[in-house]
């Protein structure tokens, strides 16, 4: 077969993404049709910037999800085809079964398929890590801002400590195999992952405190589910924490992934803590908080059901920005070859692999770089749109 021209490559890539174009059109059609009933999400479709951002983000979210089901991927992202090393975009496979649309990399793997497969890793880790960071930041930031005092001083000092650390040094210190061997990241995971449980339990308990029957049911179910998940998450056969019997251990997270996850959560949570604390300091002087205090509501009820919902605007905006920042951090980890194994198709690792001989064969590093850039840009634009729309009312 003849190598494809640039026009041919673009047409084929466009066609390859067909399921995503369809999904995007359906999503946008439905959302715009019903936007008046969808609250803040619906208002997003009033701002052009927000819509562009949302489209970019959803493009990669759909790509990631479909890639997890092997839909968009053309060739196996890990298998090497002899003779395809460093081949330029549009080169046909030797057996004539298809093309490497964006060329081959150092190990003769398909750059296009690796980029698409990498989107699943990012879409999987970044939002989840951000959610965890928010849980940690909120659970600690609410009481710090509400009570103040020693508790606040100590926590603020610790968060400033973490923030004063150069991120890359922290990654190097946490993610190297020698440190992983000592189990420090596993212990950190055990501590950090407890916060969602505390958050959910306190959230429900404070709400249904006056109806013990309901409270017991809700809190019980939540505790059962979250503790099981927690135990299966942190326990890992062969590492320091493996005291949990096998029958509880529902799933195992590959050790590397857990370490990456933990370090990203750890780096992000102090910033969330500071934001939440600042918001609480502002909101706790409002009249409705004073009203709740006069009514005799508990401190945690006030924090979680009076203050937190009123801080949601800035928090949602920051959540979008922070997913973008987490994506950048994941890329940074990959760029320094830390964490995920070297053949992993995630964008940072691919960029790292592609930067050798970059000025001769730039086609290996450019696709993941542009992918990462468009995703983060989308998240930034989305945050901008949300900020504009939430300021409007």
């Amino acid at each position, binding site marked *: 077969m003849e190598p494809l021209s640039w026009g041919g490559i673009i047409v084929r890539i466009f066609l390859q993404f067909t399921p995503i174009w369809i999904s995007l059109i359906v999503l946008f059609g439905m959302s715009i049709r019903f936007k008046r009933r969808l609250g803040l999400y619906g208002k997003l479709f009033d701002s052009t910037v927000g819509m562009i951002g949302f489209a970019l983000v959803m493009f990669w979210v759909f790509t990631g999800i479909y890639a997890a089901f092997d839909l968009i991927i053309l060739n196996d992202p890990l298998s090497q085809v002899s003779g395809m090393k460093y081949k330029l975009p549009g080169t046909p496979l030797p057996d004539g079964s298809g093309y490497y649309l964006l060329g081959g990399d150092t190990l003769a793997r398909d750059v296009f398929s690796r980029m698409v497969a990498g989107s699943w890793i990012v879409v999987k880790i970044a939002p989840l890590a951000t959610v965890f960071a928010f849980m940690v930041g909120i659970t600690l930031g609410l009481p710090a801002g509400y009570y103040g005092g020693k508790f606040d001083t100590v926590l603020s000092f610790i968060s400033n*400590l973490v923030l004063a650390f150069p991120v*890359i*040094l922290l990654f190097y210190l946490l993610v190297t195999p020698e440190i992983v*061997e000592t189990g420090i990241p596993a212990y950190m995971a055990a501590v950090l992952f407890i916060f969602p449980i505390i958050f959910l339990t306190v959230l429900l308990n404070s709400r249904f405190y006056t109806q013990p029957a309901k409270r017991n049911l809700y809190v019980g179910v939540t505790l059962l589910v979250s503790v099981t998940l927690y135990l299966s998450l942190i326990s890992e056969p062969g590492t320091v924490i493996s005291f949990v019997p096998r029958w509880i251990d529902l799933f195992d997270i590959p050790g590397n992934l857990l370490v990456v996850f933990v370090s990203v959560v750890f780096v992000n949570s102090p910033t969330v803590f500071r934001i939440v604390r600042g918001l609480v300091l502002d909101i706790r002087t409002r009249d409705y908080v004073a009203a709740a205090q006069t009514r005799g509501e508990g401190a945690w009820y006030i924090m979680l059901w009076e203050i937190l919902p009123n801080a949601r605007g800035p928090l949602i905006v920051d959540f979008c920005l922070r997913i973008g920042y987490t994506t950048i951090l994941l890329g940074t980890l990959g760029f320094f070859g830390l964490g995920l194994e070297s053949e992993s198709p995630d964008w940072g690792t691919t960029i790292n692999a592609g930067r050798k001989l970059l000025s001769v064969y730039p086609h290996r590093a450019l696709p993941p770089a542009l992918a990462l850039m468009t995703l983060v*840009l989308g*998240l930034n634009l989305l945050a901008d749109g949300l900020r504009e729309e939430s300021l409007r009312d």
Partner: protein
Amino acid sequence: MGLFILRRVGMMILTALCLTFVVFFLTNLYPNLEKLAKSQGNQRMSDEAVQSWLGNRGYLQSTPVKYGEWLGVLPGFTHTNDDGKTTGRCIDARKPVDTPPRFCGVVQGDWGYSTVFKEDVSTIIARRLGKTGKLMFWVMVLMVPSALILGVLAGMREGSKLDRTLSTVSITTTATPEYVSGVILISIFASSAFGLKWFKGTATSAMDNATFENFFLPVLTIALYGIGYIARMTRASMAEVMTSQYIRTARLKGVSFPNIVIKHALRNALIAPFTVIMLQFPWLLNGVVIVETLFNYKGFGWTLVQAAGNNDIELLLASSVVAVFVVLVTQLISDVGYVFLNPRIRIA
């Protein structure tokens, strides 16, 4: 004001102590020490050999003691061989003196010895910081004026086409981390694929002899990420100033628009960006590490990566002291500077 600075400096020292202790603790964990012993001695050392290698060099003392020795508040470790020869932390095998000092730590100005570069840490850090200083200087020269101009132009007429365009540009640059923009810039301007071989893809030659050709890309890569953020802050501050009463008064009495922007608005609009620029330094540090690795420019960031990758304990500690120092000093300067620039704020 004096008390405030004093308190902040005290806080700074406390923070630096805590952080270096954390680094010290993590680098002195046994697996790390084992790796160090094997890379310094030989790879096939038995466990006993590793133990004695570490023991002879004082690595097996408890962490607080070692930390005290590094700081210079505890007497340095000494060890006497079977044949009566004494070695120790404070005894320099290359420059023997009759009575070696009892204390040798940071307090005494001895930063230790790099196991990877086989050189004194202080000379390495000083030399590498000089290289990075050169890089940072040009980054500042490029970044600050262009960010301020972008921000002022965008903020002077909020909501106009110019504002929309410039805001999109600044969002795009903040959304592009250094390793992405670096890759894109090298691909476009330094690779044979696009045929524009305007610049060089590495900056190794720029360490001694920086020219526009070999130094512009790394400088641009670091600057781009900061430009967007500073420009957005400047824009917000400018837009706020432009809606204030005294600007309206100036317009009503017929001052021309360029005059309003330059003579009336600019001064007040530039207070907020000053803080942002100072607080941007820690970010730049990150960028420096990435860009120096990408462009193979052997400055401070490159040294940090080498030290961290090879568990070069004393070099890593010195690097983190420098990094933490930069972060905390810039925070202090931004706070103090803000008070000077904005007389409405008073610190008791």
